[in-house]
């Protein structure tokens, strides 16, 4: 390859810095969003993996009860006495004062060394851990939360996920009231050959393979899929930019290509040079994109971490590490994307006859056949989307519905616009208007990608915005119902709780104990709450399904309420029996909504709770009183019992906390929305820029016939705005369809709750204005260029050479 020839090719960019910037910014933006999202996902997954390795010892095989229940200590002993190298674990959630902590009770004596997450290695360590009052080994953050909440000594260990504590199995057994029964048994890697099979010793146990996906990773799958979808959307939109930028560069260099070929540069060399150029730009802008992506991810990660903690209880650190898996993936996708979007142009060069006219070809004419084909594919995708709504059941099906819906409508958009223009052309009498329609439809192929990008971005915005706003409105209403008590008090110990119980009746209208135990229902760990028979619940509690006798049945101890998640999981229906821990049954008499809770929940009568689970902690209380009495109540309570601030929470601040968590949750979504829209705006800009430089041959005749350049520019603006308006109008129904899919399909699959769809037209208007501004900005540069075009340039169109 001749360096001089290559240099000549590259010189094009020196004269077209804006084009170069478009190309690089396009690839960089696309890569940035994609790799930023990937970085977040990688960080979160790594954190789940770490947590699972530490907390669940999931790098080893595990034995669990086939029925999802607990394992008798005796079963463990049988395995041990048969020679199996196994180790017992008792785990569960425990509340220390205000803080809920996942206790992992291990037996350091038998825990295989490869599963030792915490080091209890120095001489006094083990005695501290196993003997005396025991010891909690926790992260620094958890230690801070546990301060003064427990009398058990706390030791801080690095690398532990927050919200979890290692403790001796004996202490865990005591705190969790397990009567010695185990949650699971860890199986060491090395076992003596010739042992009796586990199935023969303990047929009630099932072996769970090592390396199984951690629970929290399964739980959060939907969230990460969501992020990935957003990232991918942004990437696709970014590729549209690249497509138009490279297309323009190729078109403008046709003359150069011909000259080079005439000078003896072979077709092979020329194509190779262009390919090298493309790869070079892809790598440069990919690298910029990855670096940008790192900043995007760093900015978003704290929000994502808060979301994951709020929604799923998953602990993800707020800091990002630079992982090779995502920056390599970012570079790769930048490369693949750039090459793919240049492929068509490269192909054209490859096929170009050596002495092809060096004319700039305005973009190919709209071919009827192509449009029909595109429309058909779009229709098929939309049909598939409808079919998936009916047939599909899983979360992935939900996302497939989203993908087919978006791609289908995007593909149908240009043919639809073509139809509109054809109709406009037919109806128009004025020659200029006729030309306007014809010229617009002529430009359609060049603009269609940018319009599709805009449609995708706008629809995603409307859809996600509607979902978030619907969710917010429903959630706030639900909070109002659910947080009916004016004050919430947590006692520090049972003794204090008893004194409080005696004190409350004289100082509050009603005392509502909030007592709960944890147990396995249908093989899932969940909370079981007891509620007092009080008008507060009858009046306020948000029931989705129920009957007039629901609360009587609950009060009598025979009825149970289940949350929407448990109900939608499909194992229970109204009137059915639910088997509760301890081997008793209750009838399902109602379903309540329970947003923000990743797992199932059961509510039974308070008396039934205490009767069946006498050891249930009796520390938390909701209190009804007149709102204006709250401050004096707080004061008296603090004076009388010396309760710390944190143990007395009033309704207002609880609501505030919940709302803050909610807003945090969707901050990320909002940011991604804005970024996607920005990329789409840029796509529009670069497409218009491309077209404006190619359109001289179309404009020159019109100018020659007497239309002023100023009027030409005006027509251009009107055209852009018309296209923008059409796309925006199209995006509203698509966005609403998207919101419906999110609320009725994805949310149900991902979280187990369904939300009503609420329309917010003002939001659309705001979005429309933003998009309008973007459209105007994007048309501004080309228009300025047109207005400044020298008459000579326009005249050249009619000459032999331009």
């Amino acid at each position, binding site marked *: 390859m001749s360096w001089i020839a290559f240099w000549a090719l590259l010189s094009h960019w020196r004269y077209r810095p804006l084009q170069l910037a478009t190309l690089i910014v396009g690839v960089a933006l696309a890569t940035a969003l994609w790799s930023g999202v990937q970085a977040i996902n990688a960080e979160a997954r790594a954190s789940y993996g770490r947590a699972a390795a530490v907390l669940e010892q999931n790098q080893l095989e595990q034995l669990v009860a086939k029925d999802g229940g607990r394992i008798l*200590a005796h079963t463990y002993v049988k395995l041990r006495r048969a020679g199996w190298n196994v180790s017992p674990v008792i785990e569960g959630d425990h509340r220390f004062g205000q803080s809920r902590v996942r206790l992992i*009770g291990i037996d350091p*004596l038998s825990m295989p060394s490869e599963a030792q997450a915490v080091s209890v290695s*120095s001489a006094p360590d083990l005695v501290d851990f196993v003997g005396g009052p025991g010891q909690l080994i926790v992260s620094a953050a958890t230690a801070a939360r546990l301060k003064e909440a427990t009398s058990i000594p706390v030791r801080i260990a690095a690398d532990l996920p927050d919200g979890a504590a290692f403790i001796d199995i004996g202490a865990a057994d005591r705190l969790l009231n397990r009567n010695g029964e185990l949650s699971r048994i860890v199986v060491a890697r090395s076992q*003596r050959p010739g042992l009796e099979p586990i199935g023969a010793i303990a047929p009630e146990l099932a072996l769970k393979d090592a390396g199984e996906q951690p629970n929290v990773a399964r739980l959060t799958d939907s969230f990460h899929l969501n992020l990935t979808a957003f990232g991918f959307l942004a990437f696709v939109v970014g590729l549209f930019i690249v497509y138009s930028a490279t297309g323009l560069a190729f078109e403008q260099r046709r003359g150069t290509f011909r000259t080079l070929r005439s000078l003896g540069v072979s077709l092979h060399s020329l194509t190779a040079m262009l390919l090298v150029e493309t790869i070079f730009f892809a790598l440069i802008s990919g690298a910029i994109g990855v670096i940008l992506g790192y900043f995007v991810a760093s900015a978003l990660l704290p929000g994502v971490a808060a979301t994951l903690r709020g929604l799923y209880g998953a602990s993800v650190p707020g800091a990002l590490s630079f992982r090779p898996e995502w920056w390599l993936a970012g570079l790769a996708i930048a490369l693949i994307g750039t090459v793919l979007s240049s492929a068509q142009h490269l192909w054209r060069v490859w096929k170009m006859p050596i002495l092809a006219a060096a004319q700039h070809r305005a973009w190919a004419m709209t071919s009827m056949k192509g449009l029909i084909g595109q429309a058909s594919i779009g229709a098929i995708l939309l049909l598939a989307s409808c079919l998936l709504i009916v047939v599909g059941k899983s979360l992935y099906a939900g996302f497939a519905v989203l993908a087919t819906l978006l791609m289908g409508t995007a593909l149908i958009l240009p043919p639809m616009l073509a139809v509109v223009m054809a109709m406009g052309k037919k109806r128009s009498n004025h020659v200029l208007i006729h030309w306007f329609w014809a010229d617009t439809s002529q430009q359609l192929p060049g603009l269609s990608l940018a319009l599709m990008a805009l449609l995708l971005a706008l629809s995603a915005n409307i859809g996600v915005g509607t979902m978030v706003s619907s969710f917010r409105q429903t959630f706030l209403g639900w909070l109002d119902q659910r947080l009916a008590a004016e004050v919430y008090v947590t006692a520090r110990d049972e003794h204090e709780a008893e004194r409080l119980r005696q004190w409350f009746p004289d100082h509050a209208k009603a005392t509502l104990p909030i007592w709960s135990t944890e147990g396995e229902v249908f093989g899932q760990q969940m909370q079981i709450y007891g509620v007092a028979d009080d008008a507060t619940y009858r009046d306020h509690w948000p029931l989705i399904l129920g009957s007039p006798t629901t609360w009587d049945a609950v009060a009598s101890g025979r009825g149970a309420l289940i949350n929407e998640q448990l109900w939608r999981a499909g194992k229970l229906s109204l009137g059915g029996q639910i088997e509760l821990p301890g081997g008793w049954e209750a009838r399902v008499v109602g379903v309540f909504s329970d947003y923000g809770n990743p797992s199932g929940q059961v509510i039974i009568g308070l008396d039934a709770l205490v009767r069946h689970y006498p050891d249930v902690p009796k520390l938390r209380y909701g209190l009804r009183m007149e709102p204006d009495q709250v401050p004096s109540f707080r004061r008296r309570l603090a004076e009388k019992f010396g309760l710390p601030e944190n143990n007395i929470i009033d309704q207002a601040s609880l609501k505030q906390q919940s709302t803050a968590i909610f807003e945090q949750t969707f901050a990320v979504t909002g940011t991604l929305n804005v970024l996607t829209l920005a990329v789409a705006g840029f796509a529009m800009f670069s497409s218009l820029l491309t077209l404006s430089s190619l359109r001289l041959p179309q404009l020159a005749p019109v100018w020659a016939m007497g239309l002023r350049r100023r009027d030409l520019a005006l027509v251009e603006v009107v055209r852009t705005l018309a296209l923008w308006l059409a796309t925006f109008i199209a995006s509203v129904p698509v966005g609403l369809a998207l919101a419906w899919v999110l609320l009725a399909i994805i949310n149900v699959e991902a979280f187990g709750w369904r939300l009503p769809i609420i329309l917010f037209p003002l939001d659309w208007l705001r979005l429309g204005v933003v998009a309008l501004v973007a459209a105007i900005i994007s048309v501004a540069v080309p228009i300025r260029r047109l207005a400044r075009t020298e008459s000579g340039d326009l005249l050249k169109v009619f000459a032999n050479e331009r």
Partner: protein
Amino acid sequence: MNARTILFTILAAALFPPIAVVAQGFAGLGSKAEGFAVPQRGTKLEFPRDHGPHPNFRIEWWYITANLQAADGRQLGAQWTLFRSALAPGERQGWSSPQVWIGHAAVTTESRHYVAERLARGGIGQAGANIEPFEAWINDWQMKSSGTATQDELDNLDLSANGPEFAYKLTLQAKGPLVLQGDHGYSVKSSAGQASYYYSQPFYEAAGTVTLDGVSHEVTGKAWLDREWSSQPLASDQTGWDWFSLHLASGEKVMAFHLRDKGLGYTSANWIGADGRTWPLRSDEVLFEPVRTADVGGKAIPVEWRLRIPKRGLDIRTKALNDQAWMKTSTPYWEGPITLEGSTSGRGYLEMTGY
């Protein structure tokens, strides 16, 4: 944290503190009794009751050593030990038991020393000891009365243990009575008066199978059981011991130990007749003299000794079957079979700690 460091830790706290704490005596045996029961002179041992665990004492062991011979004439040694170490006095059922059990098993040949260690907590049945029918176990290692009606629960035992590359199953038959060491089972361990309860069954005939690296060998030989429990058997300045159990050609047995300290140390020994009658020996009646040391993992360990009991006309040299019989357990020590030459011949076991 692996099993090794754990044992190290537990023993450190309860039984053998790390060597660093030399002032505390070897492996914590010198630490204070802290609520644990203390052996009292004059307490009569009762069987089978005292074959079982004594959870109010800090430390206890069931300790068997066997001098074996394979069909091809090769000499072997086998060790089976169950330690009980209490973090607090008393037993509680369930996972909160303060009792920790530690098993050591070994097989020694001329060329190799196989070691395994097991740890378990009490309270749930993973390890422990039963009085009647007698059984002491940890995981799948056990020492169990074979059930044939005899005078004592320990008269007929089935013994088994295994490690990564070895396993053995032995039957032990007692050909003589239990032997109480010290003063009717009250064994003084220092001039300051620290003591333990201590009895032995030195008259076992052993037979069975030893499997090494997948190859089984039929073996026969002699075995010796030591039972001991205490809360604080060492004085704080004592750093370790050299402990001999000898099967003499005459059928007589000798138990002799020497506790080392900065001064002359403390010696105790017992001459056991072939019929089980005992003659405790005074401190100055037994003379220990290391003759040769071997480098064992960087430590100089006396693997040959001259042992004299002039009053009994005993003047022997003991020689280790394998100099490298190092127990690489959490608290490491030397334990291996020995042969005797000199005024009489015979075989035995030597345990050396605190080096």
